[in-house]
């Protein structure tokens, strides 16, 4: 995008388009300095944190990828999903079955899970094109409810391991690197996260991303402008499912275990809560959302042993009261106020 605008900046339209595009990217993410700083901190964490904390960090990254996926669908394309836990489960099971039954190396299961979920997501998104709002919520909800039951289904037991699930081995660091398994897995997750976020960033800045947002903002106007609603909506479903599936695969490798009961409806609802807390329609919101769904439940347990979920609920409602636009909404508001003050 940027390169093409440099070459033909002579025409005024191109200049406007270039300005819009750059303005857009500045609004969508943080500046490069911040990204590099965060990345250094994230890599540094490998050597500071230990054992369980590294595992938690890996899980945060897995959730962040899954949340980004849901955000592509809900935040950028305006389709709600109450059943994304199902794709998380599919990705996790795809990875586990490939490692267990096909002897695939762990790193190869990540793209495989992504492609598998892309196909399933597209096939699910196609017939549900007709459903909108609450009706789509119900359809996806049904998917979320059905998935654990399907995974337990006795005729699939040979593959899925039924209620017992599948136990996986933790991968060792390759090339004789002097890293523990936890450290390596965290770095691996960080790499996957980086790749997935760069792809998402580029996708959302491209023409396809604009088409997706146009459909969210006004489907009929988008159609009139020549955007193929059917194609983009089902494709958004596919891409979103692929992201969530990759997150699921990563979490399966980190937890070293998959079972139907790890992917209940509560997971789907947590994912939705995650994108809203982080900020709907933002890239970086995924990290805040992932931190929330990873840490707030256990913090709530520390506050009150008797009724931890009541604490969780109160925190959730308080967050929504204080920042209805999520963490990213709040940050945006603060930066807007700050940029206005000098004038």
């Amino acid at each position: 995008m940027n390169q093409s605008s440099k070459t033909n900046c002579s025409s005024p339209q191109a200049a406007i388009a270039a300005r819009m595009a750059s303005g857009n990217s500045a609004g969508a993410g943080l500046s490069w300095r911040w990204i590099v700083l965060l990345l250094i901190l994230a890599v540094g964490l490998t050597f500071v944190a230990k054992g369980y904390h590294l595992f938690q960090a890996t899980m945060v990254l897995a959730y962040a990828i899954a949340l980004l996926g849901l955000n592509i669908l809900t935040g950028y394309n305006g389709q709600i999903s109450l059943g994304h836990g199902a794709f998380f489960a599919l990705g996790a099971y795809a990875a586990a079955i490939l490692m267990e039954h096909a002897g695939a190396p762990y790193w190869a299961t990540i793209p495989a899970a992504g492609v598998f979920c892309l196909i399933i997501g597209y096939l699910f998104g196609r017939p549900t094109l007709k459903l909108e709002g609450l009706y789509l919520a119900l359809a996806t909800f049904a998917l979320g409810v059905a998935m654990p039951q399907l995974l337990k289904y006795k005729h699939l037991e040979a593959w899925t391991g039924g209620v017992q699930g599948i136990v996986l081995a933790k991968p060792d660091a390759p090339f004789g690197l002097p890293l523990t398994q936890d450290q390596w897995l965290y770095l691996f997750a960080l790499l996957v996260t980086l790749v997935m976020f760069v792809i998402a960033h580029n996708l959302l800045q491209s023409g396809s991303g604009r088409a997706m947002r146009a459909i969210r903002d006004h489907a009929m106007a988008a159609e009139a402008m020549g955007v193929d609603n059917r194609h983009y909506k089902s494709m958004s479903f596919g891409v979103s499912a692929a992201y969530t599936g990759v997150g699921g695969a990563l979490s399966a490798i980190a937890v070293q275990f998959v079972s139907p009961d790890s992917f209940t409806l509560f997971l789907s609802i947590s994912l939705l809560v995650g994108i809203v807390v982080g900020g709907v329609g933002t890239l970086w919101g995924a990290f805040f959302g992932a931190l929330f769904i990873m840490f707030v439940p256990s913090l709530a347990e520390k506050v009150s042993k008797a009724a931890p979920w009541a604490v969780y609920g109160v925190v959730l409602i308080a967050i929504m009261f204080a920042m209805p636009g999520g963490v990213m909404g709040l940050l945006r508001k603060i930066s807007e106020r700050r940029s206005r003050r000098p004038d």
Partner: protein
Amino acid sequence: MNEFLHQLVAGLATGGIYASVALALVMIYQATHHINFAQGEMAMFSTFVAWALIEAGLPYWGAFALTVVISFVLAMVIEFAVIRPMHNAPELSVVVVFIGLLVIFHSLAGWLFGYTIKQFPSPFPSNAWYGSELMSAHQVGAIVVALVMVALLFSFFAFTPVGLALRAAAQNAPSSRLVGINVGRMLMLGWGLAGAIGAVAGMMVAPVVFLDPNMMTGVLIYAFAGALIGGIDNPAGAVLGGFIVGVLENLIGTYVVGTELKLSVALVLIVGVLIVRPSGLLGRKIVTRV
């Protein structure tokens, strides 16, 4: 054949309960255009309140009436304190607030009343004349209660000035304000009614599934499906939808796939119906101006 009739009738009985909760969902949807995901848990909490009242020595119908009043007030307070401040927030944030309410009520019920499964009495004596081999007295009673609620609600909306005001406030808030309707009060009233309906539904379902904090989770899913399949903007449709879902669930569970997959299959069927008829069986097609 007898077996089939048995299943059909049992389906109607559970359908009556789904219909009541679906009705409560439609009430709130009518008034606020939100689906209250906490509806089931609020009903469960109300049922626990009724249980505590009965344990304290109140006669059944006394506890019943008191619970309905308490639930009515509680739902109004929730609307006023939690939902109203969110009226400018994005749709999804409101959904998350509902989820917050859901986990709060779930957790509070477990904390206050314990997680052990409790017996809840039925107001209908098991040897009453309307009970038969096909249908227990409680099942008949639950269906009658559901139908009476629909009739009452229908008359309330159709024949009373307050019902008219409530409908007006839901349909067009600014215009209703201009003709002197207190829209805020109407919203509270709508929530209160939904809370009361949910409480009745909870007290009807508890003798069948026993009382514990998880009792309404499945019911809410079915009620949601029932409300949508019948048409979310039509109370009669919601009741019809609730009955359809109840019967479908029972028949599929018995004859087609067994209990493990019946929820999934029922939901898939419902989604199938919705793909063919996107606004439900009795719902109005919504036409928006562009």
